């Protein structure tokens, strides 16, 4: 893997894009006209080569005005997407404000889908403020900092989450800042020793 890694950008040149990548790129091109965003789910590991599929991609956005959401809703519908939840624009906005995720897929499909949520706490805000641009052919996508993603996946603790954490660690262990990595492991009160993740 040839990657150029820095605190704010990761470049993965000559990547052959998957249908999943194209789905996310099509969605984020519309989304970023209305709001900044950050991708926080298992798709982060998949983007860097993990060999598994996923049904949904979690994306966080800051709180937004209802008019902005209605504008986004119309842009997404015009762009060939549809909301899976049986609500119209105002109902969907209400779901977001109440802390629920809304699911969006390409028209007539439901897998894969985006689960869109508003930022809820300081950690979410930190992740958005420190998001990393991943440059792949034809697009840039914004993802969570890799060190936070590893620590959070270990914290979640399912087999799939731990495998994602180990995969990201193996790919990025030579690039990550050890002080920051330790800070996030401490923040989540977890240890990676059992899985070979240590600084």
């Amino acid at each position, binding site marked *: 893997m040839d990657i150029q890694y820095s605190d704010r950008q990761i470049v993965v040149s000559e990547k052959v894009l998957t*249908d999943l990548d194209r789905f996310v790129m099509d969605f984020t091109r519309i989304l970023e006209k209305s709001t900044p965003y950050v991708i926080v789910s298992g798709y982060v590991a998949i983007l860097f*080569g993990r060999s598994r599929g996923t049904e949904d991609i979690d994306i966080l956005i800051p709180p937004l005005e209802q008019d902005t959401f209605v504008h986004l809703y119309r842009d997404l519908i015009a762009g060939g997407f549809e909301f899976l939840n049986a609500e119209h624009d105002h109902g969907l906005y209400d779901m977001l404000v109440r802390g629920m995720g809304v699911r969006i897929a390409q028209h007539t499909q439901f897998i894969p889908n985006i689960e869109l949520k508003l930022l809820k*706490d300081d950690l979410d805000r930190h992740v958005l403020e420190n998001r990393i641009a991943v440059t792949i052919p034809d697009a840039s996508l914004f993802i969570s900092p890799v060190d936070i993603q590893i620590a959070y996946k270990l914290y*979640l*603790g399912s087999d799939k989450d731990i495998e994602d954490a*180990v995969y990201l660690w193996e790919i990025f262990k030579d690039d990550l800042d050890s002080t920051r990595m330790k800070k996030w492991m401490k923040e989540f009160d977890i240890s990676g020793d059992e899985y070979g993740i240590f600084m």
Partner: protein
Amino acid sequence: MSMEFSCDRKTRRMERLAFVRTYAAWVKKTPNAEWSREQAVLINSLMENARNMPLSRQVYLERVAGRRRPRRQRER
């Protein structure tokens, strides 16, 4: 949970993690165009299967809503 089941689960997890490490090592030493081409074949076929899944949207939403929460759900 029986001790036998618990040991079996731990063994399977360790085997899976060993595979993940081996696969990551292969990705790291392989040119982007090559590992990503192989990944695209796998993911595109998974997506094709998903598109043909005989589920209604409503059943799918009920299924994801009822999915078990992660073992250690962060308090928010």
